[in-house]
């Protein structure tokens, strides 16, 4: 049904862009100062919804990595010597400032990433603040965390984060690192550098000692230089499995500690006795949250054959109500794809779905003229052999497969090199527990999906990486 024919057409309800003041240019944040790159290089950060250039950002190179790691090393001595309670108070300050500035940061993140304001406002920003608040409290309690009576920080952490949850991934990396007494050099993704630079400003507002947090916007070359730097003691990476493997090779034979948060091809398993309406919501949230650009997305729907038609009908009906468009509109459910490159990858894989004979269904919605967009899409008739069932698409594309028995569901769900997330929908308690037991995935959501919390450890099995972020477990990566 098109908008004109709808009785109750929601008028535009845009969040005000004026709450955020984006400067025309930004530097690197090294040793407490914003500076240009040593070689003077810059790059542009673009709003994916409109292709508007938001700002010009200094592009870190090898010399800048050198400078930032040196600054972090200098800062490490006094930062790690600070009583835990004092370190914690800095983190509490940061958490509070993030809460105060959350509206501004939500708008910024939506502009730079393309995700709906509804998500940055209701998910990203509350989780960011909560993450700092959670780890702030750990800073003076590390001896009780189960890693020995007097655990020590590792030193300088080199952290490389992706573009899908820019500020949240920053929080997942920086909060535990700082709580444990490490100093950090963090490289945000080249398509979403702005919120990390605003975070640098928050560090200054909080009075964080110089050099404790250094932010190096840049491309893969800067990330590779950071990871390879001999004075980095700890590498934490979230991103693609291919790059994760490269990093694992590059740190081989060193003393660098490594945690990797990589790709996934999560199975969302719906049994015939599922709470169908909630399962449909879970399927939608599982694959269309953040336009499916989520490593733990439930990108494979495994539905029991006996209810497949019913569930698919309900799913399609629900998808028709999704509102795609201006990410700043408070009623937008589906925003823009983060970049032209990502859109091309999604398009290529979806085309492979067609070519391999799966049936494509696309939600009825109009795509804006400018920006990068992909309509919510389902593929039915998919088998385990299809590329859309095996490869991470990282976009709003759901592959639908069927199964007959719980054992078959487990076998299919586990039949992937990945192992990050899985979902189970059934009203039968014992089956939930049996399934949860057998699914080879780091997080299993039963009768829910895509839930996150700072207290809850998150991370993968197999090629989805190793190490956990969040919770008590998340401290282990930053202590010895």
């Amino acid at each position, binding site marked *: 049904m098109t908008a004109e024919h709808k009785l109750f057409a929601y008028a*535009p309800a845009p969040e005000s862009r004026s709450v955020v003041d984006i400067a025309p240019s930004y530097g690197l944040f090294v040793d407490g100062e914003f500076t240009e790159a040593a070689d003077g290089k810059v790059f542009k950060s673009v709003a994916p919804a409109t292709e508007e250039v938001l700002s010009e950002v200094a592009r870190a190179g090898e010399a800048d990595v050198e400078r930032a790691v040196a600054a972090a090393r200098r800062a490490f001595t006094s930062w790690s010597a600070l009583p835990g309670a004092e370190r914690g108070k800095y983190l509490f300050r940061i958490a509070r400032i993030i809460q105060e500035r959350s509206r501004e940061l939500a708008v910024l993140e939506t502009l730079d990433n393309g995700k709906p304001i509804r998500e940055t406002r209701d998910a990203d920003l509350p989780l960011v603040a909560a993450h700092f608040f959670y780890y702030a409290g750990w800073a003076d309690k590390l001896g009780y965390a189960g890693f020995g009576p007097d655990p020590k920080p590792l030193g300088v952490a080199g952290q490389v984060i992706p573009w899908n949850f820019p500020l949240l991934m920053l929080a997942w990396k920086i909060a535990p690192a700082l709580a444990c007494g490490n100093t950090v050099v963090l490289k945000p993704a080249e398509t979403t550098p702005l919120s990390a630079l605003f975070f640098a400003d928050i560090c200054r507002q909080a009075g964080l000692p110089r050099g404790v947090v250094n932010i190096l916007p840049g491309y893969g070359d800067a990330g590779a230089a950071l990871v390879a730097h001999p004075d980095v003691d700890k590498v934490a990476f979230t991103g693609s499995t291919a790059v994760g493997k490269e990093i694992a090779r590059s740190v081989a034979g060193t003393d660098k500690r490594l945690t990797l948060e990589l790709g996934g091809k999560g199975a969302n398993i719906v049994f015939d006795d599922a709470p169908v309406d909630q399962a449909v*919501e879970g399927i939608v949230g599982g694959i269309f949250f953040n336009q499916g650009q989520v490593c733990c997305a439930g990108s494979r729907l495994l539905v029991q054959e006996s209810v497949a038609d019913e569930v698919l009908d309900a799913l399609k009906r629900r998808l028709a109500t999704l509102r795609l468009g201006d990410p700043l509109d408070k009623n937008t459910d589906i925003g823009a794809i983060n970049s032209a490159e990502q859109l091309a990858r999604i398009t290529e894989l979806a085309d492979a779905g067609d070519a391999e004979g799966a049936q494509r269904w696309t939600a009825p919605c109009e795509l804006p003229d400018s920006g990068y967009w992909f309509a919510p899409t389902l593929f039915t008739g998919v088998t385990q052999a299809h590329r859309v069932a095996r490869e991470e698409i990282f976009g709003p594309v759901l592959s639908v497969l069927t199964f007959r028995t719980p054992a078959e569901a487990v076998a299919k769900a586990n039949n992937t090199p990945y192992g990050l997330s899985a979902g189970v929908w059934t009203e039968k308690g014992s089956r939930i527990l049996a399934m949860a037991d057998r699914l080879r995935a780091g997080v299993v959501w039963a009768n829910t999906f895509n839930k996150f919390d700072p207290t809850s450890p998150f991370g993968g099995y197999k090629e989805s990486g190793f190490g956990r972020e969040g919770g008590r477990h998340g401290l282990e990566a930053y202590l010895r």
Partner: protein
Amino acid sequence: MPRIPTAAAGPPASLADVTASDGALRRFLHGLPGVDPVGLEARAAALGTRSIKTTAKAYALDLAVSMIDLTTLEGSDTPGKVRSLCAKARTPDPTDRTTPEVAAVCVYPDLAAVAAEALAGSGVKVASVATAFPSGRAALEVKLADTRAALAAGADEIDMVIDRGAFLAGRYLEVYEQIRAVRQAAAGARLKVIFETGELSTYDNIRRASWLGMLAGADFIKTSTGKVGVNATPANTLVLLEAVRDYRAATGVQVGVKPAGGIRTAKDAVKFLVLVNETAGDDWLDNRWFRFGASSLLNDLLMQRQKLRTGRYSGPDYVTVD
């Protein structure tokens, strides 16, 4: 338009056998998909974050006014009170004649005649509660007599309560037969079946009651009497909306929904309309298919209308107290 079920309408042929016996009915109702409370409430809350502005808000406010069953159900109700409420129903905002009239005035059976007289010539319907409202604790004969009295007094619509005791004791067929009996007694009137969701307690029960009511020929399914602790909530109304949506998909028969009790602000009412819009859809965005059982809601809607018209906030002295 989908056909309106009449007194003659029992379960459609496709579902005829589910009411053949107590066992069959139990198996059917217990075979409906379960409801996960957390997921349900999260969905209702998420829809509550829709931002309805400008033209959409104007549309929603007028629609909400037109969907109100303006209600007084007190022991202290008098003919004077009912007449004044009817005047309000016909002309909600004397300062703005573009304001739509409400859908119905809802009273006890003994005051239905007063309402019928006061509403004559308007489009506002007379709704009467019946069947030993609100507890429903009376013999079937008494309930039927109550219903007939309301109809005889001029009620266009009957708001009956189900026997929650029988439902909770698992005597589903008994509840079904009672609704059928009232349905027949109220032939020609629109029948709203009240579940008292706060007493059924679980969302699974509310879903089962919804199907039970629809199978028995309800024109509307209604959350509550307004007389218990938990009345209409976004979540239990969402369960009802899912039920009517699925029932129409299964049978072709469209049934209305009426949340009642506890909806007091225009902001809440608009959110309920968002629930309707994104759950059951366009076809229910009409007072033929969706009602609010409310009293104080109307004045808040009127104040919001005034705000939208004039750009300044209104106050309680600028709407009528009836």
